[in-house]
């Protein structure tokens, strides 16, 4: 199971996919569930972004899994396939933003130049300015004088500059605004790097319910409330509370809060309505959620959690984008056999040069070398990772690795093809171990959520920071489905 070759990133994957695809064709191609535990349905990215019914794609997932890159790559691909697209990013890495020409944070979608517009699509991109978005809502809902009072209030200024929940709420608010303008066929939105998946879904509701909640009404109009029948206990609670809050926060801050709340009073209804509308928009048929993850334990655990949460909120999940999946063109050679073969080459050398120190030293298995090779095959990973990188050696107390590195670097001319081959085999063994680890993590997710369609994106050795790189990611995103459908 762990050696399943289906995840190779080249032609061998296509061969491997043929069998799975044949099994899948029997049933619904989009949502098919393989009976085999190790594989789930393939997410058809092109079908999703080409469908004129798809108006919003939300990319979500934990931090560091390539969410923003995925959103940008999807947007570019959709635009080059003829749709008019806007990508809303929250906090893009500088060079990625520059690649799309949106390094200026001005809260307005800008047209991205340099895309292939032969299919007459357009790509626009924008970076969310949280404070600006908040200010705009205030300006839209309050008259000029009141708006000025709010905008100048110290409490408001802190709130809008980004405390827990504001960024999430403003991202959804901006999404609602963009959708309402009806200017784009497709909006691709990246979600904030929330501390947990929950925040992003909760934010609209939470902020909405606070802004016209009991507490706010208490702060704004205590007398009115106290007068109502059955609300007397609130009056007691209220005086105790404003007293406590006053003591805790200091009188000035409480006053600021009250001024803020009073000034905002008329706009609360608007806030609540908008939060509800955005929430409904997310549930609407034109919206598709993509959960983004990497084949790592934590990222997939968050992904599983997200899948469950989206289901609970009745949000439409299109599937899982699994980034940075490793493959190999030589999956037929297992890690164990590769290591055994590398051992064979090292042994042959030791025999060749009697007492030959070079052969021994160049092997990363220096400390295991007194053991028989058969038992060694399982462990060589440990010594080689200890040897680590040059910097690790400097700080590491482990002297063996350091000596090893220096002696080999000093005499590159002494290297033989056997040593190179042994190195290639150890590299392959490392790759195969990585593959099986990724597969295990993935299997765990699939066992929990066999219904979730998956698009795998093969790992790139470097980072992406131009349109060509994004296009390449888009190709890889779509390749998974097309290789499955081709057969």
């Amino acid at each position: 199971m762990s050696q399943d070759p289906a995840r190779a990133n080249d032609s061998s994957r296509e061969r491997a996919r043929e069998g799975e695809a044949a099994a899948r064709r029997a049933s619904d191609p989009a949502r098919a569930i393989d009976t085999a535990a190790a594989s789930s349905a393939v997410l058809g990215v092109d079908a999703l972004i080409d469908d004129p019914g798809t108006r919003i794609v939300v990319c979500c997932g934990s931090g560091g899994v390539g969410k923003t890159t995925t959103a940008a790559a999807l947007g570019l691909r959709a635009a080059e396939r003829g749709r008019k697209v806007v990508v809303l990013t929250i906090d893009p890495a500088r060079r990625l933003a520059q690649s799309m020409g949106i390094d200026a944070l001005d809260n307005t979608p800008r047209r991205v130049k340099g895309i292939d517009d032969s299919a007459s699509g357009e790509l626009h991109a924008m970076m969310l300015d949280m404070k600006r978005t908040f200010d705009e809502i205030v300006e839209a809902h309050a008259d000029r004088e009141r708006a000025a009072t709010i905008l100048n209030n110290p409490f408001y200024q802190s709130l809008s500059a980004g405390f827990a929940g504001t960024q999430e709420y403003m991202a959804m608010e901006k999404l609602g605004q963009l959708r309402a303008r009806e200017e784009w066929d497709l909006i691709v939105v990246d979600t904030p790097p929330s501390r947990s998946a929950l925040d992003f879904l909760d934010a609209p509701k939470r902020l909405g319910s606070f802004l016209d909640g009991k507490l706010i009404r208490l702060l704004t109009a205590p007398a009115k409330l106290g007068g109502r029948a059955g609300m007397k206990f609130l009056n007691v609670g209220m005086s105790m509370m404003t007293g406590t809050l006053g003591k805790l926060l200091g009188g000035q801050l409480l006053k600021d809060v009250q001024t803020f709340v009073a000034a905002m009073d008329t706009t609360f209804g608007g806030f609540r309505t908008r939060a509800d509308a955005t929430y409904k928009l997310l549930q609407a048929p034109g919206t598709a959620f993509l959960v983004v993850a990497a084949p790592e334990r934590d990222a997939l655990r968050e992904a599983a959690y997200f899948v469950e949460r989206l289901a609970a909120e009745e949000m439409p999940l299109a599937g899982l984008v699994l980034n940075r999946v490793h493959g190999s063109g030589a999956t037929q050679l297992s890690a164990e056999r590769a290591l055994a073969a590398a051992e064979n080459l090292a042994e042959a050398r030791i025999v060749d040069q009697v007492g030959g120190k070079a052969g021994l030293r160049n092997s990363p298995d220096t400390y295991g070398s007194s053991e028989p090779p058969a038992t060694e095959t399982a462990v060589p990973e440990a010594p080689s990772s200890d040897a680590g990188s040059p910097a690790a050696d400097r700080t590491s107390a482990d002297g063996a690795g350091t000596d090893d590195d220096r002696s080999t670097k000093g005499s590159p001319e002494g290297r033989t093809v056997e040593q190179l081959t042994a190195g290639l085999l150890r590299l392959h063994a490392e790759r195969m171990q990585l593959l099986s680890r990724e597969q295990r993590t993935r299997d765990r997710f699939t066992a929990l959520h066999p219904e979730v369609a998956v698009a795998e994106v093969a790992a790139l050795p470097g980072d992406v920071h131009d349109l060509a790189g994004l296009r390449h990611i888009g190709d890889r995103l779509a390749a998974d489905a097309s290789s499955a459908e081709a057969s």
Partner: protein
Amino acid sequence: MSRLQVVSGKGGTGKTTVAAALALALATEGKRALLVEVEGRQGIAQLFETQALPYEERKIAVAPGGGEVYALAIDPELALLDYLQMFYKLGGAGRALKKLGAIDFATTIAPGLRDVLLTGKACEAVRRKDKRGRFAYDYVVMDAPPTGRITRFLNVNDEVAGLAKIGPIHNQAQAVMRVLKSPETAVHLVTLLEEMPVQETADGIAELRAARLPVGRTIVNMVRPAILDEADLELARETPRTAVAKSLSAAGLGGARRGGVAERLVEPLLNQADEYAERYALEREQRAVLQGLELPLHELPLLAEGMDLAGLYELAKELRQQGIS
């Protein structure tokens, strides 16, 4: 050695893992460390393979040589009720506040209060002494918010102290700030040898320094083993494929002739070497950037078998050997 060790890093770099390994490393030889979680993700519980942590300090691991690691998942709502109880003996009124949504309001919307409560609780643990006047914990390690938010998170007390100009919140914020800006605190950043995390680390350090928060160390996590070196890579470029095929065949992997089992391995193996070479070059560049930051730099290996409890002890050992504790 700073007694409050704050661990931040870009999402996905393994900062929770590093924080936990650091706590284990610091607890070695009879010391006591408290590992604090502030983001409600229960990452520590998952790492130590225990059930979800309550808002209560409890022992979760024993370090080599008899030290102890305690853990605490700080819940801002409960922390606020704690404070109210401590300062005002509120009792039932605390529950009334909760019912009204005031607690919810205070911990979610009120500017920075949530962050003040979290850092405040950690600082309280740093300062706490037992009956005999010794510190309750030798070290407090905080699994902090990611690099992009860390300066704001730690500095929020300054902002709150400005907003709430008098009162206990003001005093509390100032007291916390005194600890956070003193040599008692060190903020470490966890990164990977990749462009985006390294860039974010550099930006994060600049922000921390601008805010006069004490920056500690840079820790590179999940460093992949150096399997091939320059000489190997050079040889890989120059060696004829037939020679590699012969050598593979000699290693017992089948025929070296065209179409033979060993010959068919040559292309994919050399492709992997090319990918490795590209990554190797990128990693060297990123390492140079990190070295330019002029902070102590540590590297932790990628664990081949994935992260588990045994791996955590391995990383703790590595940190000790690298002189971090």
